[in-house]
């Protein structure tokens, strides 16, 4: 029996009092109850990101499921020095969604990468009180909306659409350097506007 197993079973209520980082140590020791608490805390944010990227409910569900199973199976590899569990989990979701998108045809992906996608989708059930602070969310949305369209577009196509810079260049019929430059300007501008965001978001 692994040393990381909790000696006596904690009740789910007591598990819910633990920080994500402590729960991940239990998850690494094969504790499904600790995993359940992690799932409760982050599933909505994970699904929201997957849904934004995949644009269909079923693909978003598959991606979210794959990501959480990877998180469960690779729980031992979470390294708290490299960021919060939320950031780590969303990073896994993002990677999975990019993989899924890269298996899709370009047309579907273009839809997902373009802005304003929410309007054209089947309406998902919205949550009113999210773990994501609404203030932080609207601050980041606002900062994105303030970017010049050309910068916002390449960032969204890359991050949410899963396109490579070469694909984006050929899609927009622009030189590779222009695409990279717009990404750089856009991210630096966001960085200036979100200064101090980390304190709000976590």
């Amino acid at each position: 029996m692994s040393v990381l197993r909790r000696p006596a079973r904690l009740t789910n209520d007591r598990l819910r009092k633990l920080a994500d980082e402590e729960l991940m140590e239990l998850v690494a020791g094969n504790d499904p109850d600790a995993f359940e608490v992690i799932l409760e805390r982050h599933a909505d944010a994970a699904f929201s990101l997957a849904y934004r990227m995949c644009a269909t409910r079923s693909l978003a569900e598959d991606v979210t499921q794959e990501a959480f199973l990877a998180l469960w199976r690779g729980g031992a590899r979470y390294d708290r020095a490299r960021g919060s569990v939320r950031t780590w989990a969303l990073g896994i979701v993002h990677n999975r969604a990019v993989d899924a998108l890269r298996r899709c045809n370009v047309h579907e992906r273009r839809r997902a990468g373009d802005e304003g996608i929410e309007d054209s989708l089947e309406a998902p059930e919205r949550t009113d009180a999210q773990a994501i602070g609404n203030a932080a969310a609207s601050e980041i949305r606002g900062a994105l909306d303030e970017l010049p369209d050309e910068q916002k577009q390449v960032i969204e196509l890359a991050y949410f659409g899963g396109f490579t810079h070469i694909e984006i260049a050929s899609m927009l019929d622009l030189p590779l350097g222009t695409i990279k430059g717009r990404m750089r300007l856009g991210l630096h501008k966001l960085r200036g506007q979100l200064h101090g965001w980390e304190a709000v978001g976590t």
Partner: protein
Amino acid sequence: MSSRLPEPDCAEHIDAAPYVLGALEDADSYREHLLTCASCREEVAALSLVVEALPTSVAPAKAPATLHQRILTTVRSEAEVLRAAGPHADEAPRAAGRWRARRLSFPAVGLAIAASAAVAAVIAITTSGSSSGVRVTAAHLSASLPGARASLRQVAGHAELVVSGMRQPPPGKIYEVWLKRAGGAPQPTDALFGVTSQGSGTASVGQSLHGVREVLVTSEPRGGSLHPTSQPVIVVTLAA
């Protein structure tokens, strides 16, 4: 805010933004560059914080309760399997000392797999307290993937290949799963997968494994191939 940025110290700074967005096509060579360029490392660290904030900008949606249930059911059954099998059940068996190259009938390459050393151990376990048998078969990995692990999990007619510690497929490539029956050429599946930056990945194999002797993984151009175009990096040998 001005649209001018200070002139970077390093010409490769321009790759930092596409890199942190996951959009740089030749990410491997930039990753190499980062090892020796402090200025680019700093740029990547600063821009990563911005990219980490991007998921927060999406419209919130509620994960369906059925999704919760599906995930938890799988996790609980795997936890039982691992508990029953002991702490090392999850690991691929070590290759036996002697190497025995074996020829695969590949139409395009016909290359031997250097690392197919021993017969894969099959850990066959029936989860206690449930009637669903979970079968976990460890895989052989090519010597070109040191530290990688892979196993095939079969539950109720559904198979899933789970990998960890894998390197990224070569630029422009994706991993593809193939099924090989006795005497036949490897048949393509629609299971194409990549791996996370931590090297883990999962591929769901929709096709029936009836009569399949080997499950193979090769790297193929994105979109997949109809015939393998490279040597397999993973081989799972199934008991007849």
